[in-house]
């Protein structure tokens, strides 16, 4: 593999990571904003306000966990791919 090919392979890896990182962040923001609107309506109704507040907090925590996990896995996969590309492009000893 030529140095140019290797640089491009690393570039593709980085670009895919960026897409997942920024994409998941943007989708999380939309998800959270949409949910906040719904919970705001429920929390304004006295009989269900308490339960709605608890559900809102739980939902927020789950969102943080799920989207955070996606980004953690993405970074881990990126590191593995970086190592694999480096290893596979090392000159052979034979």
């Amino acid at each position, binding site marked *: 593999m030529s140095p140019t090919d290797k640089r491009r392979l*690393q570039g593709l890896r980085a670009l895919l990571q960026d897409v997942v990182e920024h994409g998941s962040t943007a989708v999380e923001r939309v998800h959270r904003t949409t949910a906040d609107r719904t919970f705001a309506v429920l929390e304004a109704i006295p009989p269900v306000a308490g339960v709605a507040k608890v559900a809102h907090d739980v939902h927020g925590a789950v969102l943080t966990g799920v989207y955070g996990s996606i980004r953690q896995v993405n970074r881990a996969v990126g590191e593995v791919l970086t190592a694999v590309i480096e290893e596979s492009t090392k000159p052979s000893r034979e």
Partner: protein
Amino acid sequence: MGQKLDLALAVLNGAVGDYLVRTDNGLALPMDLYLHGEPVAPTAAALSAAYPDATARVVVLVHGLMNNETVFAMPDGRDYGALFRADLGLTPLYVRYNSGLPIADNGAALSALLTTLVSEYPVPIEEIVLLGYSMGGLVVRAATHAAALSAAPWLPLVRRALYVGTPHRGAPMERVGRIVSAVLKAIPDPYTRLIAEVADLRSDGLKDLGDADLRHEDRARRGLHVRLRDPQHPVPLLPGITHHLVAGSLSEDRWVRALFGDAVVPVSSATGWRSLGEGLDPSRVRVFPGLSHAAIPRSMDVYAQMREWCEAR
């Protein structure tokens, strides 16, 4: 490198090439001369090896947005460069670049490349013909502007510039995109804002096409309008060079010409239309009815016209 991969990289660079450079991504294309799909370093040794029959007159071909030098290839394998070589003895030099970068940056890079070229080329260069297709024509104009400011040594060698389907007054489609993006952003809804954010990821080069911005400072003039408010382009065609403009049109019909041009660039934009300064001789402007934006960089009719222009002394 496979031609399909090269084209995929060209499209990617045109779409988000500025982001690739900002993030130091290895997929970003540097500006280089290319011959038969391979880069040619602008060094004396590499140029001598690549062009053993180099002539003192050269034609520099600059492609457009999201493509590379293969955009000039005709079905029989010839292209404008090869034809100029065979008919007029001009050595063709194909430039490949990251079309997602600002046009001003690519113009400056082209000027620097040509400065190196004139000192490293195998024989003393007597004449440079610049040929830009679509965005490539704006890159050529940005390069001559940068060269004029820095008194670059290659500029006095340029006698002629050929612009093929170049949006000298900008591309209305990009201006429409700018408005749609602004409207989506203004709607207080997270989904439409997300769509607007994705739309805004388009590259600086693409955004520059809206008003044909050749300098960084020209971006301050941008507004939300489809029609051009100011008919005078802030960077007129450089005097001292004979400029020739070629436009395509889907049809001879007056309305089709006015509204759609070659399907991407309106005829009024490709022919300058009162915007490029005084003195543009009508005989140096030619409209080809029936030629789309995709067909205009590889048309024998267009070549015949360009050859006729270049033969005239």
